[in-house]
């Protein structure tokens, strides 16, 4: 339904009560890629600009969380310790910190973006991908820190570290896909934000971030059905070179749920795109 001029801007747009076709929606999305980059950069800058320690917070907060968790659980769960435990906790914590931060911002992104979307058209899905993209800079910084401090944390350098690339990509994809679904739901049911906040608390403990998966025998079905398990297990494998527990099934769960959520989320965004604004 959309003709494209030489400038790349749509020449003719026809709106009815039907959503844009997949093709025109996707090409519209492609045209707005530059805007996404600018918005993501601004999002990243505004987050740390006003703080005097600036970017350092991107690392300090998850490190601090990780240290507390490690200290507490090393005492409670004796068997959790061992060689490379610090690297184990830190890498898992960094991954989970990205997940919870991005999901928190992503869920409310369409509602929060009302001032930007009220008068101006662009695919609203952009707003959801902005925190995912902006926070991935923080994610990269924390893992750069992890790599630098790896010997201190009991890890060793090796070829297995290359696995970090696909594992972090999977993390970003899963988080974005989930945010696509939840942000669309949040426009209609404003309870979603609070449910997500509550769920994230439980989620952390159902993910083998602090203790190995083998410790969670009673909750094992939940842990394996949890898509974050596979992602975190892959991050652990990438960081330490060995996995503590089964990895194949959780990883398949992660990949499968990412694919399903991405399709469902993108469809939800496309179908409700020009309807959101009337509910904000």
């Amino acid at each position, binding site marked *: 339904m959309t003709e494209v001029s030489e*400038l*790349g*801007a*749509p*020449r*003719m*747009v*026809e*709106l*009815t*009560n039907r*959503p844009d076709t997949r093709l025109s929606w996707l090409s519209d999305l492609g045209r*707005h890629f*530059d*805007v996404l980059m*600018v*918005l993501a950069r*601004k999002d990243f800058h*505004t987050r740390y600009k006003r703080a005097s320690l600036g970017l350092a917070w991107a690392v300090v907060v998850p490190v601090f969380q990780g240290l507390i968790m490690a200290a507490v659980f090393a005492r409670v769960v004796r068997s959790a310790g061992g060689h490379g435990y610090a690297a184990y906790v830190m890498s898992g914590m960094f991954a989970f910190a990205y997940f919870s931060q991005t999901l928190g911002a992503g869920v409310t992104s369409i509602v929060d*973006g009302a*001032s*930007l*979307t*009220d*008068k*101006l*058209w*662009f695919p609203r899905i952009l707003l959801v991908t902005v925190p995912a993209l902006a926070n991935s800079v923080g994610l990269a910084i924390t893992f750069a820190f992890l790599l630098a401090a790896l010997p201190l944390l009991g890890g060793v350098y090796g070829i297995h570290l290359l696995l970090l690339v696909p594992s972090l990509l999977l993390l970003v994809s899963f988080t974005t896909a989930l945010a696509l679904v939840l942000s669309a739901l949040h426009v209609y049911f404003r309870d979603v934000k609070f449910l997500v906040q509550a769920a994230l608390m439980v989620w952390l403990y159902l993910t083998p971030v602090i203790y190995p998966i083998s410790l969670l025998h009673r909750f094992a079905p939940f842990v394996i059905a949890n898509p974050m398990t596979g992602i975190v297990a892959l991050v652990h494998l990438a960081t330490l070179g060995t996995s503590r527990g089964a990895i194949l099934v959780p990883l398949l769960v992660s990949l499968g749920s990412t694919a399903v959520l991405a399709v469902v989320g993108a469809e939800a965004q496309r179908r409700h795109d*020009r*309807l959101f*604004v*009337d509910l904000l």
Partner: protein
Amino acid sequence: MLLKSLLPGRTATKRDLWALRDVSFAVEPGETAAIIGRNGAGKTTLLRLIAGVSRPSEGRVRVHGRIAPLISVGVGFHHEMSGRENVLVNGMLLGLSRRQVAQRFDEIVAFAELDDLIDTPVKFYSSGQYVRLGFAVAVHSDPEILLVDEVLAVGDMGFQLKCFDRMRELQGSGTTILLVSHSLHAVRLLCPRVLLLSKGRLVTDAPAETAIGRYHELLSAEPTHLGGAHDPVTALSRSVEGPDGPTHHPKRGDELRYRVELQFNQAVDSPSLSFQVTSDTGIVCYAMNTKPGQTWRRFEPGDTVELEVAFNARLGGGTYRLSVVVADRNAGKLLAMNVGEVPIYIAPRPGSLGWADLEATITAFGLELSEYDDLTLKAVPGSRVGG
């Protein structure tokens, strides 16, 4: 160029609120049209549909060309970002490339007069500064279609003049403009064509004077001005008659008859009745008391009185309200204001401004007539602030 048709179809359920119904029109390239109507008539909804922000529940909106956004208070800005960043994002959303925005950046900031504030987050901007920046970005992005929602009411007078000039320029260069405004002066000067919306329906699509006149008829048809039984005095009927019968848009200098029938809902010993003409900004332009010094009889609840006021409409261009003020002369108390209110619209004498029509003639020695026309256009938009 631009075609809209919202056709009637299935009946609405009780909970549905139709912001727009049966609205069909087309605007040709390079045309300027205004959309007027009361608050809640669907003007902004219509612009939002054309901007593509929202999609119609029924019918079709077809737009050819690059659209600049709806410019109004709070236009597409991110509150946490600075003016500079917002100009970049906004410009890019309007279809400019990063480089094009950078090239035009100084021009945009200069137009918005925000040099000092450009690196401040826009959440610290005043509503006027907000609109200035939004308007500046929009008009510098070479829009083919410009949608303007009440800009002329927000900025200060200097900026209003600038917006006005800029819209004239864009008109000249072939930009299609759709303007929503309560400033009927601006509408009249910028838009040869006016669409009148009422309760979501397109009532009139006509030349400016006709549509504005029709708008005033609609305003006076609203029963809300009559007052209720709990008011001390209510109007049972009211009308304005000109030389050619009932009218809501008389000509300057017409002999008018304003008739109103009042009913007293409480006993008043000696009421005083005044005829009053107020501007749409609430300024009393003229008031006349019924026979000063005359003693009135006592009115009991249910008693009625008929007034006829004959006067000459020596008024400047604009919207006025004719009404009656009732006071209790003995108690020295004001009983009711604006009873039997009737709005009228008077087309201004070209080049004139203000509430009175003094029929001045100006002889400017050594000035060409065409220059006079330009002066007129520049003088008018600043005359009405607010909507």
